[in-house]
């Protein structure tokens, strides 16, 4: 508990962002570094040989479309909040949540497709190539779950009329994080398409 609150207007100007926005951006950087490690590890490992080629399930394309749509609905919710159209804001958030859950379900289906295509995570028949796909998808899915929790919190605030044109911080952060997660997936999908 902070007994004497900071008053930001009496501070030296930083980057012009709220501290919570800066915290989020820094956390995003750390997630970027994690995936940079995975994907560069993938390339280094592939170039050393003993690397089994695998087929990417077609279902990943559908998942990618789902997450791209969810980014669009999130942006729509953000714009609605800025225009104080609270009904559309709530609709946008719910749609984004549903699309996010659909994406997760789709990733689960794709895991099944991978197994059906003899690409395994572990065990005697596994090769690092396939294991990497599971790790990339799994760690991304974990972060997507945190994004869904964040969305749910913002939705609750929206239902309590705490998100509107003069209170854009939480939805702004949620939008930024959600776009990041979507962009991260599209990067991973493209990466796997080009390098599988």
């Amino acid at each position, binding site marked *: *508990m902070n*007994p004497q609150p900071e*008053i930001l207007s*009496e*501070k030296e100007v930083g980057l012009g962002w709220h501290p919570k926005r800066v*915290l989020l951006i820094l956390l995003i950087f750390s997630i970027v570094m994690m995936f940079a490690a995975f994907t560069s590890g993938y390339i280094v*490992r592939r170039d050393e040989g003993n690397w089994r080629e695998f087929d990417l399930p077609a279902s990943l394309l559908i998942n990618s479309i789902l997450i791209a749509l969810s980014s669009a609905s999130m942006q729509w919710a953000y714009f609605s909040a800025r225009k104080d159209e609270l009904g559309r804001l709530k609709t946008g958030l719910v749609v984004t949540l549903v699309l996010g859950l659909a994406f997760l379900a789709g990733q689960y289906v794709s895991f099944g497709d991978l197994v059906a295509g003899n690409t395994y995570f572990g065990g005697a028949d596994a090769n690092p190539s396939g294991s990497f796909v599971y790790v990339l998808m799994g760690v991304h899915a974990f972060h997507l779950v945190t994004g869904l929790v964040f969305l749910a919190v913002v939705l609750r605030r929206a239902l309590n009329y705490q998100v509107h044109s*003069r209170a854009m911080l939480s939805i702004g952060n949620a939008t930024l994080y959600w776009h990041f997660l979507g962009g991260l997936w599209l990067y991973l999908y493209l990466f796997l398409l080009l390098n599988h």
Partner: protein
Amino acid sequence: MSDMTPKPNLSPSVEAQGGRGSAPVPATEHDDHLLHDDHHHEHHDQHWLWKYVFSQDHKQIAKQFLITGIFWAILGGTLSSLFRLQLGWPEGTMEWLKPILGGWVSEAGKLDPEFYLALVTMHGTIMVFFVLTAGLSGTFSNFLIPLQVGARDMASGFMNMLSYWFFFLSSVVMFSSLFIETGPAAAGWTIYPPLSALPQAIPGSGTGMTMWLVSMALFIVSQLLGGVNYVTTVINLRTRGMSMSKLPLTIWAFFLTAILGILSFPVLFSAALLLIFDRSFGTSFFLSDIYIAGQALSNQGGSPVLFQHLFWFLGHPEVYIVIMPAMGMVSEVLATNARKPIFGYRAMIGSLIGISLLSFVVWAHHMFVTGMNPFLGSVFMFLTLIIAVPSGVKVFNWLATLWRGNIRFTAAMLFAIGFVSLFISGGLTGIILGNATLDIQMHNTYFVVAHFHLVMGSSAFFGLFAGVYHWFPKMFGRMMDEKLGYIHFWLTFAGVYLVFMPMHYVGIAGFPRRYYAWTGFDAFSQFADMNKFISIAAIIAFLGQFIFIFNFFYSIFRGRRATQNPWNSTTLEWTAPIEPGHGNWPGEIPAVYRWPYDYSKPGSEVDFIPQNVPYSQTHSSNLPYERDMAE
């Protein structure tokens, strides 16, 4: 608390209490988290559990980090004494340690070889991560960032508290691993696979290794929560006038250290995650073509060198995470006690930035012996040697700061000078080891051990000691004893050189590291006396640290009471009350007008002008361009 009488002509008027808290705040979401505690301002009857244990106050969290760090340092030092006993007296009996070590001492009174490996592993892990990362930057980033930039607290007190408690959890897991039957992790602090990836390989790669990985995962979470907070606080919560070019060098160092942590620890997390999958879920990221006890493993296609790349991508920035906070604090202590502005303030910032950038592109110099392409090796060698440039700039500036200074030999100052000495001695051998051709010769000898213990281990410890002696009055409102501080310094300073100088010679002569027993090799028996000497010096230096520990805890309760600004320092933390309450300044936060190194300014009546003194109050010492700012 009551002794808050500012020097009349030096401090701007401090407004009546509560001037800030009651300021009208627009009730938007931007501010509601800041506003919502407004009502319970004066919280004197806070429950002790919230005040001392689950505190969100950065000063309290800093003390928690420091005391946990001291605990770990004692343990890490004890472990090193144990393996120094083994190395110094390989034929001696350890029977007398049986009551403590139990089964780790064999019937014949010999230290178990597996346990020796565990000792070295845990010594490295504890010292690098738990003491010199969490204990050093956890303590001083937490303590000094809000106080020196002029903020009430960290950007997120809650995340800051979580940062400590994740560290605490990680400590509990690591500490418990010392007591399990198969012993703690024993694959070296660098946990190279395949040794660390195969639970059946040695006792120390079983449960102990699993606990090591879990503990480190928690540790990384703690570092990230702390690091993002430090950076945000520096970016967003500087007080009026505190531009980036007026920040004390401590803050610059903590700021860049935190950025290194944010960018490099996630990579270690990735590596640890893949290793966990290899160990427990049957993947083969790092495993291929392995026979164990005559059985072929099914793992195919992995590459242990990939792990080394991932590990050292953290591992090298990590040594700067360890040394940069010490550099920042030493700069501050040297300038204050030499009563001179730091020499080359901007060059100091530039060299910190240079070191930070370079730290990300030199990791493979730890891997010259992995059979890498010689061309790649020469690229990394070139980049590594460039680090000598910013390091040289820093050393030159420290020496130039001391040059013709009016030096006050406080205990903190001695440790700061000791830091510079150790950094030079250790840094010179870094130039040798940065050369691939020389490194391949020296890599598995004690030369490497001596190098990094001087330049990173001991120097960072000296920075830590300098920081504790210097900021102890701000932390606890009392002074540490100077006489004991001198004894502590000379024992430690002489001890460190007596331990690590001979190690260089032993290393050049080819004495191998990581060996439990060297008595089987005729070539090394000539080093028996040298090893004994190193061991004696190491144990005496370690025992000397208890002087510090006594001094520290005794002074918390019985030390001489501190004045508000005992070192006549210019930075903002000394304008706060002797023991700042929650919120740091009772009234308004002071605004900043000048850089933090106005010591012995020509024309000034006093030999220091704090940062919060406007130029309009110092007409006699203003420089021409400052005269305009005074109007």
